[in-house]
């Protein structure tokens, strides 16, 4: 499914950054028995164990070529999961400006909580990984 466009009209989930956390979340979404259409976007090359089950894009969210493959109006969940907190905040804020809904941002530093809360961006970290993401399933 590499480099394919989002295919469904609902329950799309976009995950930014290839990390242990993103792999954990992908696994839990795939195990939730809900048919999410998951897209993983990473700035670097990806060798992901879920290659056959998710869409994989390599590039930068700000790249117009990448953006045209993502439709945030049809995206139920957006998760910024890279290992770089600053990059996650920049990406999450950008997604907010694109009117994406249910944006999750992995932040390793609590001092940014107010900043993210003020934009209604949901914060998580390796010690507090959202474990009920399938509750965002839209029928």
């Amino acid at each position, binding site marked *: 499914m590499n480099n394919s466009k989002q295919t469904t009209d609902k329950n799309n989930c976009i995950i930014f950054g290839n990390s242990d956390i993103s792999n954990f979340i992908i696994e839990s979404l795939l195990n939730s028995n809900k048919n999410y259409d998951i897209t993983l976007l990473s700035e670097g090359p990806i060798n992901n164990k879920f290659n056959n089950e998710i869409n994989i894009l390599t590039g930068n969210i700000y790249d117009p070529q990448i953006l045209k493959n993502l439709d945030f109006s049809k995206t139920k969940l957006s998760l910024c999961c890279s290992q770089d907190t*600053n990059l996650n905040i920049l990406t999450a804020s950008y997604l907010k400006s694109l009117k994406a809904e249910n944006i999750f941002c992995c932040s390793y530093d609590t001092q*940014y909580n107010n900043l993210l809360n003020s934009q209604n961006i949901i914060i998580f970290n390796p010690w507090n990984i959202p474990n009920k993401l399938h509750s965002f399933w839209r029928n």
Partner: protein
Amino acid sequence: MIGANNISEQLIDWYSKYNHEITIIEKKLNKCHEFDQLYGPISQQGDAADLNIQKLAGMERADILIVTTKSDSTNFVISSLAKSNFNVNTIINRINNMNYSKAFEENGFNILINIESNILQSIEQETSILAPWSIAKLKTNPSKEIIGIKINDDSNIIGKSISEIGFPGHSQLLLIIRSNGITDIPAEHKTIHPNDELIVLIQEGKKEIMIEYLS
């Protein structure tokens, strides 16, 4: 200012002439010492993406924040913290990858400086025969822009008066800079000579029409 580097050094020289209070936040202790020795005690050592360091540096008194680190995401976080916690009015960001510019602009950080764009602009200006360069963008509605255009030797408008040329309705000639450097206020009877530089106010996005007119 964030980051003790060549840019901040030049800015300190310039701002201190006008008696402004300047503080530099810099991670590296040796850089802080270097700047303190050169300019007096102006540096705050620490990570500018740390709220406490911003507080210690006196961010609540800052009128202008200039963020020039080499990481766009770090610049974004520093700017966002300063804006949301200390209401800093004017925030100027160095942006290294222009792909990020939309993210900054959408979050209210409109003053973005990209070094590559500035170099390109300088090259355009130096080789500016009928390649207009942008001087300023005006926040009017509709948006307007002041551009400079150097007139080529074989341009059709050479020898014509300004009234004969008849500039397009969406534009206004503001100034003529003659090839010897003398500035000339435009008037209907004045004529255009080879290598004159025209400073023109245009509606944003109408550069190509203007080039066609003047070629």
